[in-house]
């Protein structure tokens, strides 16, 4: 059996949860078994995960607030109770806090941050993940009985293959929480960067935070999330959580539009898995053009408003 941990934020599922259930259902099919989903704490319409291929949804009550030890114990407990040998979760901030604990708890081989469905041959399961910050792929064979896989965001398309299913409460022994959550601050109303399919990003070429309107206007027209380069976050022109690159967030959107960013190798390391890259820069020698699919050599303060108008015209067709 494949067990998928589907995370809910404030009781609601985000795209990442639908992606992991889709992934789990397809993996189960390849293994000739079924996929069930696990939710923790209070979740609205948990049975909805059946639409993405879970044949059943289980819920374990946990007290409010995230603690990696409690969550890992709950998931490991469910895997043992249900005899699920393959466990799938998201490679997001929650997943990165849990995956290692879960693997240690189950003495399992783990593949964190995979990008595609596993290759299954008999009991052998091999998954592909990016390594060297997106500069190569590695095929990882998991050698243990229990297998833990965490899936990078935007790696596979969400697919609906069923309808809502029953939710059953499961009870497992849980340790007490060692971490007390004091405060959670999240920008509301935007798609977080790792989940965003469309991203518009600005760099030093914007010259100052007061000029960011050309970025946000384009992002609004596209329905995209905004991002920025490291120097911009370092001088606080933009919030830290918008910083994409080697030391910031690594993303893999369908479309990444970079304006006024030269394309240092450290920046590319965070965005080189994007499916399509558009670079706007007035310097035709900017290294970013070598990594781009489409390039516009020009003044971003003229090009971006023109692009925003063209997007709006396209959307009104």
């Amino acid at each position, binding site marked *: 059996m494949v067990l998928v941990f589907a995370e809910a934020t404030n009781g609601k599922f985000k795209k990442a949860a639908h992606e992991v259930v889709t992934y789990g259902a397809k993996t189960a099919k390849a293994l000739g078994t079924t996929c069930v989903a696990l939710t923790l704490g209070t979740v609205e319409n948990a049975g909805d995960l059946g639409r993405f291929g879970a044949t059943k949804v289980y819920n374990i009550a946990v007290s409010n607030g*995230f*603690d990696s*030890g409690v969550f*890992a114990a709950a998931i490991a407990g469910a895997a043992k109770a249900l005899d699920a040998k393959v466990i799938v979760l998201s490679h*997001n*901030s929650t997943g*990165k*806090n849990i*995956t*290692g*604990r*879960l*693997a*240690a708890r189950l003495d399992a*081989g*783990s593949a*964190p941050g995979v990008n595609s469905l596993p290759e299954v041959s008999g009991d052998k399961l*091999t998954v592909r993940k*990016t*390594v*060297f910050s997106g*500069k*190569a*792929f*590695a*095929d*990882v064979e998991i050698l243990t009985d229990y297998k833990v896989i965490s899936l990078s965001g935007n790696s596979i398309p969400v697919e609906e293959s069923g309808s809502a299913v029953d939710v059953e409460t499961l009870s497992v022994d849980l*340790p007490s929480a*060692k*971490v*007390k*959550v*004091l*405060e*959670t*601050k*999240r920008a509301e109303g*935007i798609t*977080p960067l*790792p989940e965003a399919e469309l991203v518009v990003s600005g760099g030093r070429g914007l010259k100052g935070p007061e000029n960011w309107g050309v970025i946000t206007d384009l992002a609004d027209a*596209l329905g995209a999330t905004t991002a920025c380069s490291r120097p911009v976050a370092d001088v606080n022109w933009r919030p*830290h959580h918008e*910083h994409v690159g*080697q*030391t910031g967030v690594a993303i893999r959107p*369908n*479309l990444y539009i970079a304006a006024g960013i030269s394309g240092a*190798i450290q920046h590319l*390391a965070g965005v080189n898995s994007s499916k*399509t890259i558009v670079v706007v820069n007035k310097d035709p020698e900017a290294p970013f053009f*070598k990594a781009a*699919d*489409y*390039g*516009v*050599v020009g003044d971003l303060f003229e*090009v971006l408003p023109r*692009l925003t108008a*063209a997007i709006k015209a*396209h959307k009104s067709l």
Partner: protein
Amino acid sequence: MKMLVCVSKTPETTTKIQLTADNSDLDRSGVNYIMNPYDEWYALVRALELKEASGGTVTIINVGPAENDAVIRKGLAIGADDAIRVNAEGGGSLYIAKQIAAQAAGYDLILFGKETIDYNGSEVGAMVAELLDMAYVGEASHLEMNGTTATVTRDIEGGVEVVEVSTPFALSAAKGMAEQRIPNMRGIMMAKRKPLNVIDPVEATATTSISSYELPPAKSAVKLVDPEDMTELVRLLHEEAKVI
């Protein structure tokens, strides 16, 4: 406070990745190695700052062969008091975590970088915390200690979460935690005399193996679009790239 900083050796950030002829490994000829930047800039430097503020000791641990000593000595030159190298090679994340856990008894705080820039796993810290039944805070961008209680800010999608935790605990450090330090000549000289204890690994088996590597397909040449004609760019994104 007794602090343990777990460091990894990785290819330098700007390394051009090439593979061996049979794709079984990275072609390591001519590759320069460094201390994993998250381990050095953020985890190690924050530990040193805490020691400078309130006393204690900072120990570095690395799991790897003798050639890793250069990276460990750099950590000592930046200011760590002593170091442990578990003399082992390969084995994967859980193998490495078990080696660290076997040496980590008695520390109040165990620090990791948020990921290594080679395998990008982000999991050894959480594994060690689980093996030692400790609290763990991943991707921490801020840490304040007040006696045995810590306030830690961790990065989450689109924001941060602030948590409180008591020693002993483990964390992985992200940007914001501290600023890079360059070792000075005195530090480099002193590092040569600081203890670097080499220890044999404990028994553990590998749980994963990498069967092969592959490089991403070469990017085709950029298609330049007339800056006056953004309607054409929109057409290309819609009809050719099919992303809008």
